């Protein structure tokens, strides 16, 4: 039996990959299937009604609060992604092109460290920075720029965006860095040799070649941010709550898991659709250029 399983390279490879694969199937594919099923059921307090119905989806469609939350969530995720990637690109570029090879890992290490430190505490610290008596306000009052502390920087969507952009920064830098590292430096010399300036070389050679990294960065920031409820809870105030907060509330506070499941699925479908559209547009744009 064992000898048969390990007879060919393909079988040995499949045998080797099977533990993580089976784990993912049991712990991810099966549960996601479960919530899909769940979203077609209904719950009334503690009793679960297992008759198939589209009621949850109808409710999401009918009640404006869900649509508004979803729209705001996608807007926030979009802004966070744009801010993160645009701010991250120059850093990735700097580390890849202007840092000595021997120091590159030190830079990457410094960039990734904050990412690994307690997420909750980091979010809370932004509250300290942006709060009424926070670092920004007391600093600005101290040097006399303003008389009264600013109130528009905490408990709204802006605060959520700043905090999330900070949290996901390394996630954006690493894939862009990897893509930039792969660019053969003689291509840039070739472009300059063929008459392009340094500036136009960046747009005609470097940027298109770095695009796969940028796409990866966009996806790796955009998709997970939709599922975060900590930052909006702590930073968003009343007007900054997002769809993830609603999912959490449906599951834990209101005990309406089927509606929460339907909401989670709608959110995931929206994110997936937007991501696929983005990837497709990007491919088309790249092909259009070449």
């Amino acid at each position: 039996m064992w000898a048969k399983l390990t007879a060919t390279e393909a079988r040995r490879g499949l045998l080797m990959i099977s533990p993580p694969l089976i784990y993912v199937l049991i712990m991810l594919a099966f549960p996601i299937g479960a919530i899909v099923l769940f979203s077609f059921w209904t719950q009334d307090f503690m009793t679960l009604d297992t008759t198939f119905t589209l009621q949850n989806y109808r409710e999401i469609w009918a009640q404006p609060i869900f649509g508004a939350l979803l729209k705001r969530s996608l807007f926030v995720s979009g802004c966070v992604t744009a801010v993160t990637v645009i701010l991250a690109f120059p850093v990735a570029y700097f580390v890849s092109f202007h840092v000595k090879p021997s120091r590159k890992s030190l830079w990457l290490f410094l960039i990734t460290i904050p990412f690994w430190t307690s997420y909750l505490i980091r979010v809370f610290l932004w509250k300290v920075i942006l709060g009424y008596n926070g670092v920004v306000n007391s600093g600005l009052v101290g040097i006399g720029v303003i008389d009264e502390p600013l109130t528009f920087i905490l408990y709204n969507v802006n605060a959520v965006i700043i905090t999330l952009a900070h949290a996901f920064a390394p996630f954006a830098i690493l894939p862009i860095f990897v893509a930039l590292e792969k660019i053969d430096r003689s291509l840039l010399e070739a472009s300059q040799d063929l008459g392009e300036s340094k500036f136009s070389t960046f747009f005609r050679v470097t940027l298109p070649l770095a695009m796969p990294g940028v796409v990866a960065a966009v996806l790796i920031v955009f998709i997970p941010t939709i599922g975060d409820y900590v930052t909006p809870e702590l930073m968003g105030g009343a007007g900054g709550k997002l769809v993830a907060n609603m999912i959490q509330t449906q599951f834990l506070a209101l005990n309406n898991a089927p509606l929460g499941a339907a909401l989670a699925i709608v959110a995931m479908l929206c994110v997936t659709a937007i991501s696929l559209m983005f990837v497709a547009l990007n491919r088309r744009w790249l092909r259009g250029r070449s």
Partner: protein
Amino acid sequence: MTLRVYAIAYLIFLYAPIVLLPVFAFNDATIIAFPLSGFTTDWFSQLLTTQALHRSVQNSLYIACITAVLSTILGVCAARAGAMYNFPMKRSIIGLVMIPLVLPEIIVAVSLLVVAIQILDMGLSNWTVIAAHVLICTPFSIAILNGAFQNLDPSMEEAAMDLGESRWSAFRLVTLPLVMPGIVSSMLIAFTISLDEFIIAFFLTGANPTMPVYIWGLLRFPASLPVVMALGTILVSMSIVLLTIAEILRRRGMARVGVKDKGGFL
């Protein structure tokens, strides 16, 4: 030059919140705001006497240790399969295994919650948290271990077998020592992620909260915030130590198989 200034400013932006931690942890005031009022170590001594905190830390350490071991074992399987074998549908299978890396954590959380409570009717415990943490840590383990395995010459194990060793002892004598730094580094990273993880743990934690869930509870009480700052200071320093060890080991592992370091672990 302007790029360098920008990059340094960016690093300051990244570190700004963390730098504030020790400032308020040693500040002699219950309100987390400027101006500072004086130096104290009271908040740290309070940590020592809070029983609930100790229980949650124990819980989190237990969860993090088991998560680290399990996700590293799964990671070794996947990284080895990816680096050393060709098999049908390799790309899609590896892609599927890496999916939890980009999946919104709330999806993982609610779907496992539904399965645990409604379908299996088994109740929540540390093991539900571990199951979810292994799921999200495995892709990170794979990414780190890929670095170790991909630089390995596949003929190395064949050479050992050619010299009389069995398949398993070839792995034990040749591959294992070479990827050991990667394994330790993967365990440290998985340990750190699990120890910090809140979003999923909040849904799946049982009767005993994990440390982040406990901290979340504290955040609602303004009086306990300085203690949170003290706890955060300790956590961040510990994370930095663990990550530094992980990084040093990763580099040593690269040096051992004789390849040039190409940068970070993702």
